[in-house]
């Protein structure tokens, strides 16, 4: 039985008469009174509605966290930090700190404390940086209820010299109570060191594992523009960007949760950039961190169909990836692949704001997928090979007009030019990288000598497209008489020279392939026969041993026997050497290799030869665990045997007591191996040429079994060595030899990542 109207009125007037008014009681009495209105009925809100908004609307933990970060973004914060404290079991806390504008008491009451405010509709952009406000439903704050049972909100504006703090205990919001009657204490506290809002969520409902925190972080990262828009914006009130960091704190130990995006950018083959200045001149640049010393910075010429004048202020930056296990290390491959699958593509920003749907997985606004399908150029260039953005400036909104549906831009001339501008630079860049990659010879898993197809093709492509442009009728495309306009003489000259170069390069490669084929078949033959020779040699030696043990009496016969013994041992040494070299080459497994093992293995293999040639091998290895990135064991065998072959020849020429020094160690992110000998040395005029195919100074008749001069002096040995080293992203060079030596080859290859080294490597 409800209290009578009279008694309620009486209690209200008593309440109003008292010195301090209890707001909670007043509200509850007036609403009770209002409910007894005979003529009208009103909606009321049950306090447990907060539960609906928090626990039920914000289903996932990640979404809840994202909602809180959006609040910071809307408040013009540049930094939002999240600290998860002792959350490995339920009951921990989460602190969300932003350096935004903070809220005044009025803003708190009108904004934060008011559910379903229309503020975001009436003020769609943020105060300071004019950000398009991200939170839309107005329920972000209830995400805190989803996350924990208690919230302490502290807010500090830029101007006020005090801060405000409100304490929410979500468990007070129980069913059967009027929402408006639940009070949350607000206090004025001393000025905080920095402006912004801090949400401290205590008594967390769930436990958060590191993996969950990481997942939330990844989710948030995906919502933010991964690029630094600062570079591309050019406005007075420029938005310095927005950065979120996650920390996890346990037992006072603060740990930063890392950003995988940076991890992913590291595996890009190149960064492609383009820009158009105020005069309408376009520039493009390509920086490849993968291939050192490799930057291109050029002006992009205007072509007849497109002009860049409308595009003043346009900039773009694109990371280029090729999903190839050779280019991306094992541990990261699937991460990069998944990331590119989800976020790959080139997004478009207009005046700093993302224009949808450009750059979404299904969108092909630059026609990259189409171009790939038509194989306009050969290297991979689908949308998912790129991660980047294009930013256009159009303050007046006249150049690029939005469609009436607010989804995308009208495909006018400016838009067409923008497309051409970006596509042109991207396609040129991927061709350059392809040519470079080919030179480096890192095609597939197994080592394959560089093939001419792509780089030659790329060059031909370039020439042909030039020709196309020149041949295309300029003014009237519909004109049926299609005559080739006169070609200017400079261009004709370029074309002629280009084609001649192609011809020459092709010829050289064919010769090289021919020679490699001869060497390969020779290798097979030697492999087949050395094994057979070992069998015959075996019985020969067994017989000989018996014979020599019978007569060792200083007679003339016994000295003949000694000579035979020496030579038989030499033949045995060579046979073993070949056999081991062949066995080493037969192992074709990619694995991390330790330089000590490589050197020890080489010593074992070359041992008999070194003894025979009376060459001393000296080792000087500094540091432990000199693991290389995954390579073929046989590649190192080839490298060292080739270098040794040269050394043996050079030592013979120099007529000295031969010495070979192998030094190894770490240098920055690489491991190095230096191979020095005290032979004749390389004359300075030859240093630049020794790695070229067919360069040879060899005049010695065959060192090994064959004396066919043609094969000994092919000049392919060092070329092969260089190809092998470079295919592993390494470098080989001739450096100043250590004292006492004449030649020194230095090889550097990347060292293995910790996760690549298997347990049993020790």
């Amino acid at each position, binding site marked *: 039985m409800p209290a009578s109207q009279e008694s309620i009125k009486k209690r209200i007037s008593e309440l109003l008469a008292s010195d301090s008014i209890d707001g909670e009681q007043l509200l509850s009495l007036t609403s009770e009174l209002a409910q007894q209105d005979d003529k009208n009925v009103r909606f009321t809100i049950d306090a447990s509605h907060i539960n609906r908004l928090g626990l039920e609307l914000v289903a996932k933990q990640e979404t809840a966290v994202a909602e809180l970060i959006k609040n910071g973004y809307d408040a013009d914060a540049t930094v939002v930090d999240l600290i998860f404290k002792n959350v490995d079991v339920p009951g921990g806390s989460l602190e969300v700190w932003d350096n935004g504008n903070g809220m005044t008491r009025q803003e708190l009451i009108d904004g934060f404390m008011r559910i379903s405010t229309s503020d975001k509709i009436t003020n769609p952009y943020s105060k300071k940086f004019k950000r398009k406000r991200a939170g839309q439903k107005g329920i972000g704050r209830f995400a805190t209820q989803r996350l924990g049972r208690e919230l302490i909100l502290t807010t500090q504006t830029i101007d006020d010299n005090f801060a405000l703090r409100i304490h929410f205990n979500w468990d007070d919001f129980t069913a059967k109570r009027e929402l408006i009657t639940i009070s949350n204490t607000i206090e004025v506290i001393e000025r905080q060191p920095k402006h912004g809002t801090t949400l401290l969520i205590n008594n967390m409902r769930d436990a958060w594992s590191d993996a969950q925190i990481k997942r939330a972080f990844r989710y948030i990262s995906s919502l933010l523009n991964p690029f630094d828009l600062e570079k591309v914006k050019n406005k007075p009130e420029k938005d310095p960007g927005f950065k979120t960091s996650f920390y996890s704190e346990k037992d006072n130990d603060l740990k930063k949760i890392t950003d995988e995006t940076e991890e992913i950018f590291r595996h890009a083959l190149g960064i492609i950039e383009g820009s158009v200045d105020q005069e309408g001149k376009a520039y493009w640049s390509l920086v490849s961190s993968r291939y050192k010393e490799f930057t291109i910075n050029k002006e992009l010429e205007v072509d007849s169909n497109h002009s860049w004048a409308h595009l003043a202020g346009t900039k773009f930056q694109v990371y280029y990836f090729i999903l190839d296990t050779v280019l991306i290390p094992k541990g990261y491959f699937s991460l990069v692949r998944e990331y590119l699958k989800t976020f790959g593509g080139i997004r478009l920003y207009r005046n700093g704001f993302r224009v949808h749907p450009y750059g979404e997985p299904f969108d092909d606004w630059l026609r990259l997928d189409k171009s790939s399908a038509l194989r306009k150029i050969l290297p991979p260039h689908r949308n998912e090979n790129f991660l980047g953005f294009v930013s256009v400036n159009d303050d007046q909104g006249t150049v690029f007009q939005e469609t009436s549906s607010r989804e995308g831009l009208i495909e006018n001339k400016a838009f067409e030019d923008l497309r051409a501008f970006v596509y042109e630079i991207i396609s040129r860049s991927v061709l350059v990288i392809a040519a470079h990659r080919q030179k480096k010879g890192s095609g597939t898993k197994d080592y394959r000598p560089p093939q001419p197809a792509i780089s030659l093709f790329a060059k031909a492509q370039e020439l042909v497209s030039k020709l196309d442009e020149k041949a295309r009728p300029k003014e009237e495309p519909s004109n049926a008489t299609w005559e080739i306009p006169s070609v200017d003489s400079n261009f004709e000259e370029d074309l002629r020279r280009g084609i001649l170069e192609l011809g020459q390069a092709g010829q050289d490669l064919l010769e090289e392939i021919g020679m490699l084929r001869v060497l390969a078949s020779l290798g097979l033959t030697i492999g087949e026969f050395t*094994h057979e020779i*070992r*069998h*015959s*040699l*075996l*019985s*020969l*030696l*067994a*017989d000989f*041993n*018996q014979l020599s043990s019978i007569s060792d009496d200083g007679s003339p016969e016994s000295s003949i026997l000694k000579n035979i013994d020496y030579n038989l041992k030499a033949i*045995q040494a060579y046979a073993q050497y070949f*056999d081991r070299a062949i*066995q080493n080459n037969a192992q074709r497994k990619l694995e991390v290799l*330790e330089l*000590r*093992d490589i050197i*020890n*293995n080489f010593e*074992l293999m070359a041992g008999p030869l070194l003894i025979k040639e009376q060459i001393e091998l000296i080792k000087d*290895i500094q540091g*432990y*665990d000199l693991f290389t990135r995954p390579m073929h064991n046989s590649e190192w065998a080839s490298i060292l045997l080739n270098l040794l072959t040269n050394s043996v020849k050079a030592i013979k020429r120099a007529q000295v007591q031969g010495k070979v020094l192998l030094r190894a160690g770490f240098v920055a992110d690489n491991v190095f191996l230096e191979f020095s000998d005290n032979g004749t040395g390389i004359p300075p005029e030859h240093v630049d040429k020794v790695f070229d195919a067919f360069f040879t100074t060899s005049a010695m008749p065959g060192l090994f079994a064959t004396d066919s001069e043609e094969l000994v002096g092919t000049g392919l040995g060092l070329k092969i060595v260089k190809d092998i080293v470079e295919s592993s992203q390494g470098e080989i060079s001739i450096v100043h030899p250590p004292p006492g030596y004449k030649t020194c080859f230095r090889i550097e290859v990347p060292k293995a990542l910790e996760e690549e080294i298997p*347990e*049993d490597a*020790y």
Partner: protein
Amino acid sequence: MPIKYLCIDDDKESVLPLLDAIKNGSDDLEFECQKPKSEIRDQITSIKASSSNGYIIDFRLDKNKNDENEIVYHRGHTLAQELRTRMAERSISSSPIVLWTVDDFQQSSKKDDTSRDLYDRVYIKDKDILNNPQVVKNELVSLAQGYISIKEKKNGPDPFFSMLGISVGEDDASLDPRMGESLRTQGRLHSCHKYAQYILKNLVLVAGPLVDDRILAARFGIDKSQSEDWRKLLDKISTESKYNGVFCEAWPRWWMHRVENWWKSCKPSPPPLRRLTAEERVDIIKKSTKLTKLVAAIPYKRNYSSRFWTICQVYECPLDPIDGFMAFSPNPLPWQDTPYLSMHSVLEREHKKKNFSINPLERQRLKSLKRI
């Protein structure tokens, strides 16, 4: 009666000199060499007819045509398995089988080493045979004699210990009771091959209750290459502690528990060997035995301890386990000694040349050592 081995090799002509080198004119060993038969059935018949005490089988029987000008399709393992089966069924007398090869076997056994169990020994033709034919000869003879002895004792009382030449009780009671446990129960049911395998591979070739002269020298702290009286010392302790069980002819070993008893009997009664430095051990031995030409061994590295207990598997030098890492051994038995690798060999990765790895338990220690 000389020991007779039947050698089955498809390259008969070129292995004859090898067999001659092994025999080297001695009359306690003789060989018969056959090319393989293309049919296993014919092969078994001819093997039975040869009445041999052991078999040498080539890994690749399929490379050359046989006497009947046929191609043989099977390899050595097939034949060896057939022989083992027949021996277990007693249609062929139990005998040693050794494999010899140029090196194909090493390649294939890296991938699958289960077939190794078929053989008592594996020899590399141009390494073991060419360099040490005398050692191979001794081993072949000893293996055949060992099998003959196992066959005799297998059906007698306490077969396992009688094969080892000891009787349990008295001073041998200190042996680990787990040693040979699987063979001591239901003894008669086991094949000779199983006894031979167990004794050779778990006791004779691996240090534990039995040790070879290198470990013995290490434990005495003696540099045997520098010590003229080393042989005399060995003779002194051998009466009591030399192993005289099967295969002792080719593999001289000593019972460690008996060696320790001998040590305890030295006057005045010395502290346990392990506590003393090499110098201290040698001093005591010199005084006790009156042998003067004994030289204390020096550690491999100057800062290594000389309280030697084992040898480095890589350098074969005496080693205090404190200066080494445990080597990985795939199926160690609890009563065997742990093989060690000296720190130096592991840091310089010399152990990898001999295909050793460190025990997984040591990885952390190695890591922390590298940081110093």
